[in-house]
């Protein structure tokens, strides 16, 4: 079985291979039996991933399929803030909230995800590269210019973008990304320094592995949990950057169906027509919580095959249960 696994694995891209490997290992550990903690851990992790996945379905479906289901622009044909017109009532312009929600997901999630993705890719690459560079000069060269942006109050930038570019989605996405890049870069650099300077990275370099592979194959994977935990919360923040800009009257178009905009624009009707605020908020909450849980579930706490020094301490989900002894003692 193992031989087949290896032969199999050699053909696939390394990342995919590792993932498959992981899944199999979890499965194997499960099959192997009644060691307390192990199956429970992996089941919990799977539950987490599953729960996260389920939570993601409504918002993602709304964002992806919504544009095909709802008219564009959403006609303004009802009474303003009428709670009983249509399933979710209407908004300030008398538009059907359900239709708005279906229309506005793409831009809300799109801008936020694009911004965060951009920030994570750029910031991550910079941070990892800086962490992996052996010379301080390269490190400085990479990280210092980015750090210049760091003290720039994000609030100022958002207000500038709001005021200057009227909250154009691309401008907002770029601004949010630009604001996040330094933070991500620094965070990942700090988190990666250890992995990047450790003997594993050295061994890989001594095997002639390309810089990129050391960076993304090893260092990147080592900081993945940190990056994922970070990115997950950033998505939520990014979505609401738009909403907050609107809330502060920084001049975004308040008639856009973007979830964040709808929330901000309808907030005064929170007690008159709660759905106008709650429906998009709920979807956003589902999205952020779901994405984070899914990431947690997929990434777990770390690798399955733990350090030998940690023998006995590792279980499938990376719970330490020096675990098993302790667990019993405390149980």
């Amino acid at each position, binding site marked *: 079985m193992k031989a087949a696994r290896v032969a199999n694995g050699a053909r696939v891209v390394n990342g995919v291979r590792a993932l498959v490997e992981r899944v199999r290992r979890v499965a194997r550990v499960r099959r192997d039996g009644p060691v307390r903690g192990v199956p429970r851990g992996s089941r919990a992790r799977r539950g987490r991933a599953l729960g996260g996945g389920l939570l993601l379905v409504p918002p993602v479906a709304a964002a992806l399929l919504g544009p095909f289901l709802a008219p564009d622009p959403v006609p303004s044909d009802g009474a303003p803030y009428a709670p009983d017109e249509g399933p979710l009532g209407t908004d300030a312009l008398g538009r059907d909230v359900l239709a708005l929600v279906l229309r506005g997901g793409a831009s809300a999630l799109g801008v936020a995800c694009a911004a965060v993705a951009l920030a994570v890719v750029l910031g991550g690459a910079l941070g990892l590269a800086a962490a992996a560079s052996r010379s301080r000069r390269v490190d400085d060269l990479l990280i210092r210019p980015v750090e210049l942006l760091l003290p720039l109050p994000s609030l100022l930038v958002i207000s500038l973008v709001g*005021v200057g570019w009227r909250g154009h989605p691309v401008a907002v996405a770029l601004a949010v990304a630009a604001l996040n890049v330094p933070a991500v870069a620094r965070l990942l650099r700090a988190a990666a*320094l250890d992995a990047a300077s450790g003997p594993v990275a050295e061994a890989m370099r001594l095997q002639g592995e390309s810089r990129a592979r050391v960076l993304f194959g090893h260092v990147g994977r080592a900081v993945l949990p940190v990056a994922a935990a970070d990115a997950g919360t950033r998505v939520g923040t990014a979505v609401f950057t738009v909403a907050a800009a609107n809330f502060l009257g920084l001049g975004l178009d308040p008639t856009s169906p973007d979830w964040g905009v709808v929330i901000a624009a309808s907030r005064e009707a929170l007690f008159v027509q709660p759905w106008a605020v709650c429906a998009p908020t709920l979807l956003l909450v589902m999205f952020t919580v779901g994405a984070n849980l899914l990431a947690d579930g997929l990434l777990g706490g770390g690798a399955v095959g733990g350090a030998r020094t940690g023998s006995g301490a590792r279980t499938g989900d990376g719970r330490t249960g020096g675990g098993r002894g302790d667990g019993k003692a405390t149980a």
Partner: protein
Amino acid sequence: MLRYTLRRCAWTVVQLAVLAVVVFALTNLLPGDAATVDFNEQAGLEQVAELRAQMGLDRPWGERLLDWAYGVAHGDLGTSLVGGGPVSGVLAASIGVTATLAAVTLLLLVPLATAVGLLTGLRAGGRTDRAVSAVTLTLTSVPDFVLALLLVAFFSLRLGWLPSTWVGVDGAWWERPELFVLPVAVLLARTVCTLSRQVRAGTIAALHSGWAVQARRLGVPRGRLVLRHVLPNAAVPGVQELARTGDQLLGGVLVVEAVFAIPGTATALVEAVQNRDVPTVQGLALALAAVACLLNLGADLVTRRLAPRTEVLR
């Protein structure tokens, strides 16, 4: 360590200088200027032009920037275009509340986020973890102004326990701690999650390491293991995040200041942007950036202590 600190401090000064120029450029890129904004809806173009000349906005921008820089170098942050008062006055009048708000939040945030992060990290995958993570995540995912409105609706309007806004609070706010409850709660809800998740991730990673296991083998009890062994390592990403939280807090503070009508720096900054009051924007941005730089410096120093191995590399 000293060399490192000095180097970082010098760098901070460079950062601030570049930032001043960036902020100046950005503010000047904004459509409209202080004169147009000031006479919005009230006067015609001639009057606007007259005012513009009076404000000195018809001078070339390089000259204005140099003037300003000269002033800053001599400890003068400039004069507000709109109110006519010194920018330092605007800063002084607003910084107290904001700083207090941020400080109170940080004071509560750090232990809270650490505790939550450790708790969830230690029980990663367990029921507690899922429940607590879901709650904190939900709190971050609810826009802060919605949260603020809900809190106000419940605690102020329904129950009448807490004041709903700071409207009419003049001075002596420090004698009324109840004013801080709701704003701080909103700020915490926004930041606890971000920070605690970093601590959680760090904790999980640290718990797996050989030394954590070895410490356990040597009989270090769980509580002590977590606090003395795991936490210093788990805190590295958290500390970096915390430095950034300073800024995030500010963003949150702005919304909170708007909702609760708190006369703070964030409000002053946005207002200055809206007024195109370049000297005020620059003064405030510089002050806030200086704080952010200090936080980052602190974070770097702490990180260096917590991950001493990096010293060998850099």
